[in-house]
Each structure stands twice: as structure tokens, then as C-alpha cells.
């Protein structure tokens, strides 16, 4: 419940503060979102599995976002930013799908 409220609070803060993203950071935003979603779904699944751990969740969230952004940054510097972005999205997408499938099994027993 608190988790849900925190999420809502973040959304409300984003709406109210109307932050502008520096141009240099804009390419990393979508990747950061996908990485964050991966951490969130991983956390939800862990919760349902009964093995949720706060430290693990926070660290996976922060490191996911940073590593994903760093990989894309590295790719940009090497001239393969687009391909590496695709790679990151594919890997994280696979993980999200797997975790959501596990969540679904928990919730619907199917």
C-alpha cells in the first residue's frame, strides 16, 4: 500500500514540478524507464514469491538505470548507440516479460 502511494506521489510530483530534462540526458530517458520498469516488476514478483528485500530492490533499481544509461552512452561514443539501445531494451524486455508471466501465475494460477 505504501509502495503504491509512493508511486502515486512520484507521479504527482512529476506532474506538478514539470521538470525539463537536459538535452544531453534525453536519449537515456526511455532506456532509464525500461530499466526502472524491469526493477519494479522484479520487485513485484519477489514480493509475490515472498522473497522481497528492500535493499535488493533499491540497488537493482539504481544500478539498472545507471548501467542501462551507461551502456547507451558507451554505444553513443562508439557510434553504435542505436544498436546497443536495442540490445538493452531486448534484454530488459525479456526480463520484464518473464517477471510479468510469473506475476500472472501467482495472481491467476494460470
Amino acid at each position, binding site marked *: 500500500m*505504501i*509502495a503504491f502511494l*509512493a*508511486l*502515486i*506521489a*512520484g*507521479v*504527482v*510530483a*512529476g*506532474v506538478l514540478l*514539470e*521538470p525539463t*530534462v537536459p538535452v544531453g540526458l*534525453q536519449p537515456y*530517458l*526511455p532506456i*532509464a*524507464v525500461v530499466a*526502472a*520498469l524491469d*526493477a*519494479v516488476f*522484479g520487485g513485484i*514478483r*519477489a514480493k509475490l*514469491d*515472498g*522473497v*522481497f*528485500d*528492500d*535493499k*535488493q*530492490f*533499491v*540497488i*537493482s*533499481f*539504481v544500478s539498472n*538505470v545507471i548501467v542501462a544509461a551507461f551502456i547507451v552512452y558507451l554505444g553513443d561514443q562508439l557510434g553504435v548507440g542505436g544498436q546497443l539501445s536495442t540490445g538493452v531494451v531486448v*534484454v530488459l524486455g*525479456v*526480463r*520484464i*516479460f*518473464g*517477471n510479468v508471466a*510469473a506475476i500472472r501465475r501467482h495472481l491467476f494460477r494460470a
Partner: protein
Amino acid sequence: MTQASQRPGEERRFAPDFLLELFSNPLDPGYADAAARRATYGPKPPWRRRGALVLRTMALAAVGFLLVVAWREAAAAEPDRTSAHAGLVDEVKTAQERTDELQVQSDRLRQEVRVQQQAALGGSAEELARVREREAAAGLAPVTGSGVVVRLADAPVPIDPTTGKPSGAEVSRVLDVDLQAVVNGLWAADAEAISINGQRLTSTSTIRTAGHAVLVDFRPVTSPYEVSAIGPDNLEARFKRSVAAASMRELVDQYGLGFSTREESGLRLPASPGTGLRYARPAGSPSPSRGVR
């Protein structure tokens, strides 16, 4: 679940098939490790649990924040892109309309010049005929006659064999040099007047490529290109024997460009919208009897 079966202290290894592992086992093993630690050492002290709760709350707030920011960015970028595109389309349309307008105006003024010329020459039929001839030779007056039409076309769009749709591969295009070679070949075969897609060539005409378009006298012309030339009866035969025609046939074989010639009587080539000379001045005596030819 499968992760929970991991024993504490058991060494975790990546399966030889890492991708398969990734697909079948997407949960961070860290959760299992943490659960195992809790099972071994008992629950954490309350102050740590409270700290962890705060951290978790902050992380989730950050996730929500991130989602909103990303959504706002995407939403803000979209109208930018479409409005920029629409603006450019509008600009192009306006410019085209303006060009057409100016073309009409130029045609009207040329007609006026002709009328004034006739008046100035006092209706002397001989003088008038001479002026007409000069203008026709210079490309500033429309001409008719029989000649040849050379047709050049870009290669057809390559079809992707798997989808059956046009593939994104680059189309082989007719280049400015191809047109130049054909025009030169026609001049060499004694053509007296040439136009490309209704654009009459003069002594100062340019044929060049700009991006994907070919510009003739800075006006874009597009495939198929019809090079019409008025000349002697054997113009087609002579052109077909020329180096230009031979190299075009080679391009047809290699790149699939379109290339054909046909004889045509009663060709009518328009006048060039020629701007006249801006820097060069006629040299020598103004006497009409001692000029070119």
C-alpha cells in the same frame, strides 16, 4: 519457485547457454540470496527495516517521477515533429505557387516584349524574321521540327523478395552526368534545339544533381526524362551510334535504367525562360550581318 530452491552458499554459475538462462529465469538472484540470508540470520533489526522502507518508498517515488517525465518528454516531442513537418510542407507549397505565379508573369512579359519588338522593327518582315531565327537558335523562342525523343528513366524500385513490398534499397537513378552525356551526344549528332522534360536548353543551361533531383537550369525535373531534340533526319541513327548512347546501353544492362529513343515529327520545343546576359556584352559592331553564322 525455482529461485527459492537455490541453497545458501551454493555457488551460482551462469549456464553455458546464457540467453536460455535469461529467458527462463528472469528474477534477480539477489532476492533469493537475501531471502536465504534472512532465513539463516533471522530478520533484520527494526531500525534497518525502517531505513529500508524509506529507501524503497523513495525509489518507488523516483520510478513514478521517471515515468511521468518520460511520458511528458515523449508527448512534448511529438507535436514538435509533426508541426515542423507540416510547416515545411506549407512552405514548399507556397514556394511552388509563387514559382508558378512568376512563371505566368514571365510568359506574359515575354509576350509583351515580342509585341514591342514587332512595333520597334516597324513591321519590317525581313528584320523580324531574322530576329526570330536568332531567338530560335539561342533557345529564346519556341521551335518546331522533326527529330528524336530520348527517354531515360530511373531503375524500377527493387522489390523485397520476402515481403513483396518495395524494399528500402537505394534505387539506381539517372544522374546529371547521364543526361549531360545524352545531351552532348545529341548536340554532336547535329541537333539544333534540345529540351529536357519541356525545359529548353540554351548556351548557358546547367544540368546537375542536387540530392535526389536533377536540376535543369535550377528547375527540378524528374524521371522519366524525355530529351527531345530537333535535328537532321538521320539524327536518331547518328545518336544511336554515339558514345553516349553506347554508355547508356551499358548502364541499362548494369543498373536496369530505362533508355529508349523514338523518332518523332512535329516536335514542338518551348522557349527557354532564359534570363538573358547579365555580365557579358555583345562585342564588335552591332551590325546584324556580322554576327554568328
